[in-house]
């Protein structure tokens, strides 16, 4: 498994998520902790998603070991698209994986 810090996204259908095909959030790794908006393992129920996303929240995730990375340690777009070639989102050329950084 690879550990990476990844930015969070939000949709009204599913709530907060990480925009990669497979991941597992590690507990107590959300940042930045902000009273009333973000605690160590999530966003507060009453917090407006726009206000939370304005803080560029991120979380440490485990990614599958086969996740392709480039020389800089970022998720490599082309091989990832190939891995999920038939998926209606992750297999499309306009899907750009979020920027992964080393976990802190």
């Amino acid at each position, binding site marked *: 498994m690879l550990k990476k810090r990844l930015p969070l996204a939000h949709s009204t259908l599913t*709530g907060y998520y990480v925009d990669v095909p497979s991941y597992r959030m590690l*507990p107590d790794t959300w940042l930045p902790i902000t009273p009333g908006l973000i*605690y160590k*393992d*999530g*966003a*507060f*129920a009453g917090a407006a998603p726009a206000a939370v996303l304005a803080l560029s929240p991120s979380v440490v995730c485990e990614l599958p070991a086969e996740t392709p990375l480039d020389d800089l340690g970022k998720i490599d777009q082309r091989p990832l698209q190939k891995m999920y070639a038939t*998926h209606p989102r992750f297999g499309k050329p306009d899907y750009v994986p979020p920027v992964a950084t080393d976990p802190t």
Partner: protein
Amino acid sequence: MKVIFPPGQRSNYFDRNAVTKAISGATSTGPGSAPTIRWTYTVPAAKKYALNTLACRNVRQDIGTVTAAQTFIAVTPAGGAITNLCTLSNYALERGAVGQADFSGGLVFMTGAVITANTSDNSATGNTEHNYSMTGLEFDA
């Protein structure tokens, strides 16, 4: 009349480069936590996924008010609509209240299916612990 069943042309799924894919997770939410996808597994191209077990559990760790803690695992087939596989809603307010939902079976998901573990907690006070896991086999389609 003699009925003959010819042998299959392909090997069984568990002999087609099968790899165990198991994901588990836990979180403690509250008071109040927005809906969040805690983990996701997407079936890669040219693969299928045989789901063996699912489990959801949540436990109130403190006395709560206005609670509706939910833990569920859902699947979204490629190009399809999200469908819940295992849903757990816990409306109990007392400390130690446990909700648990388990599933075992032989569902097979096609390439591109996305399985997600989701949590939410509308409690105004107190914390809730959530657990969510699945096991299965990924194999050549």
